């Protein structure tokens, strides 16, 4: 058995009350991330789950210091191995990003330079951050490509991103991210653009990486199926806040937040009998109310009660955190079987 709370081993990254506000001229501010706290330990995989626009990517960009400086206000604390990343000068942060922190984005085409061969993009990291000679870097790059499952790596190193399939580009990107042996890897929807068989390969690769080198992994996804197979701890986000947080098994066995339960009930599943009508969540993620006026999920929530507004519930509970005044009961099944 894994330890219940890997954070007790001493965390590598601590995100404390992180908020990101986008200021836009002539329009109201957008609070994309709103008081998010979590930690990741070496060898641990933490999942951030939620639908598009809930603040997953902005959270990861804020951690990496990749948000634009103009028009963006970042508050709270991000500490990596004791160093406060938010107050670190840009050059120091850049150095850290090349060496200890790495990120893999959803769309590999936009994050690889289209006019530079794959090989150069990987060896560059190796020569710059690990001080390898060109020859050594090329050898190591070929080895990395082989490790991420790219056949014929020495030929592939000479090719340009457009010559690779989507799955291979994503693997090349992971290879580039791994080149400096990062201690923290953020994978933002790394498989969303890929087919299931390739997705399975990439997830397997990430798992091996965590197990073998003790990398701390933040896996961002909207797919609960992906989370179920990979993450130790799962944080469910809605409207910029974490609404539920639990060890993986507990979250799936007993989701308590109506949004988590709703997500699980709204997808058809291969592991369940088919004669079940899907239970959609009413409305859309756009129908939120500001947290300042109550629970943002209230307009869509089947469990809504009077206490849900106008004061938003706090995130309570240590091991299983929950931001809800009227959670799902254990006798209230998330997936209601409705015969056809």
């Amino acid at each position, binding site marked *: 058995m894994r330890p219940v709370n890997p954070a007790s081993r001493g965390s590598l990254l601590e995100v404390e009350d992180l908020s990101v506000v986008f200021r836009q001229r002539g329009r109201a501010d957008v609070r994309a991330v709103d008081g998010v706290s979590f930690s990741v330990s070496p060898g641990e995989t933490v999942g951030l789950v939620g*639908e*598009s626009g809930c603040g997953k990517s902005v959270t990861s960009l804020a951690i990496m210091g990749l948000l634009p400086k103009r028009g963006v206000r970042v508050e709270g604390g991000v500490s990596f191995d004791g160093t406060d990343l938010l107050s670190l000068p840009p050059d120091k942060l850049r150095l850290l990003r090349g060496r200890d922190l790495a990120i893999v984005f959803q769309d590999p085409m936009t994050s690889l330079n289209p006019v530079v061969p794959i090989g150069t993009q990987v060896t560059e990291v190796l020569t710059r951050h690990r001080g390898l000679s060109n020859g050594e870097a090329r050898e190591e790059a070929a080895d990395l490509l082989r490790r991420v*499952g790219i*056949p014929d790596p020495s030929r592939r190193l000479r090719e340009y991103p457009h010559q690779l*399939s*989507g*799955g*291979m580009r994503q693997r090349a990107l992971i290879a580039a991210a791994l080149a400096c042996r990062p201690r923290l890897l953020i994978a933002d929807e790394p498989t969303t653009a890929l*087919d*299931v*068989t*390739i*997705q*399975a*390969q990439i*997830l*397997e690769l990430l798992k091996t990486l965590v197990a073998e080198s003790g990398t701390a992994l933040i896996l961002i996804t*909207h*797919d*609960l*199926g*992906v*989370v*179920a*197979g990979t993450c130790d701890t799962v944080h469910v986000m809605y409207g910029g806040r974490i609404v539920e947080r639990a060890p*993986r*098994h507990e979250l*799936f*066995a007993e989701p308590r937040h109506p949004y988590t339960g*709703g*997500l*699980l009930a*709204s*997808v*058809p*599943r*291969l*592991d369940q009998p*088919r004669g079940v*009508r*899907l*239970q*959609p*969540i009413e*409305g*859309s*993620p*756009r*129908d939120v109310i500001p947290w300042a006026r109550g629970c943002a999920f209230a307009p869509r929530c089947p469990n809504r009660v009077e206490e849900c507004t106008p004061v938003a519930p706090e995130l309570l509970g240590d091991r299983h955190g929950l931001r809800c005044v009227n959670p799902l009961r254990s006798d209230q099944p998330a997936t209601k079987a409705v015969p056809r």
Partner: protein
Amino acid sequence: MSHRADKGGEGVNAPEALLSVQGLQKHFPVTKGLLKRQIGAVRAVDGVSFDVRQGETLGLVGESGCGKSTTGRLVTRLMEPTAGKIFFEGHDITHMSQSKIRPLRRDIQMIFQDPYSSLNPRHTVGAIVGAPFRIQGVQTEQGTKKAVQEILELVGLNPEHYNRYPHEFSGGQRQRIGIARTLALKPKMIIADEPVSALDVSIQAQVVNLLEDLQNELGLTYVIVAHDLSVIRHISDRVAVMYLGKIVELADRKSLYDSPMHPYTNALLSAVPIPDPARRKDRERIRLQGDVPSPLNPPPACRFHTRCWKAQVICKTEEPPLAELAPGHQVACHFPENVEQATAPAAAKVAQNVEEALHPKKPVV
């Protein structure tokens, strides 16, 4: 099950087949240089045959680039096939002229993947959903507006929103607008290309349920193209699995998901992530190596042999025909899985293949 293996069907269609596709091909020429010299062809769809019966839903699954969307576009005649035949209600519509095809366009409608780009942002919902009436010159009894509002109601949109623009709606609502537009002319058949994959998880179910309700209410026939095997299982009566431009397995939903016979189908199903960590352990995982080969230069004989763990010499030399191995269950493989489902003659053929693979008559080169 009265499924007919269409061998040499010669245009004689079983009465229950609303749509019948035979040997359909679409090859896209690949050109090079200023002179646009043809250097090859992408064999996007390469000999596909299937029937769709009145009132049923046929699901078309497969990985990116296997030819699902192209098949959909060919069937709706948005594209000219390279070869093959398409029958709708028994009529050969393969090369029907543009003027003759007009009434057909009412009967077969298409829903597209992206609810954001498939609606004109400068037109109101009323204009978008009403457009088919105008284009087809259809007179409605109580005027177009009334007819459009009825359709909006049918798909769960507020009829009062007649004058709003697409950007004022969420993704799920926009997909409803797209569905409303296809319903305007009371089609018999709807081809839906990835109708939910661009939508947020929590609203996919709204659209899936809507499609089901409309089918029950209006007796629609669907061909649904998707890469998501869970969605396809939920919504389909029969399922065709495509790989590199060919159908490799076609069966009713239950047989396909309970006892898949093609190795590729088995691999696909085992790669689907299950949102339940407790159940994942006892699932057998098949790990496929590598990517789907390029359709520009597909592997010879069985196209799956470069990734198949069961491949033998015969797989590289002889193309397995799509044959009915069990009632209503067609498979293109020399060494299928779940062979205990097969009919006696089919099982005997498989056993013979296995025997020959184990004891080849001539030395393997």
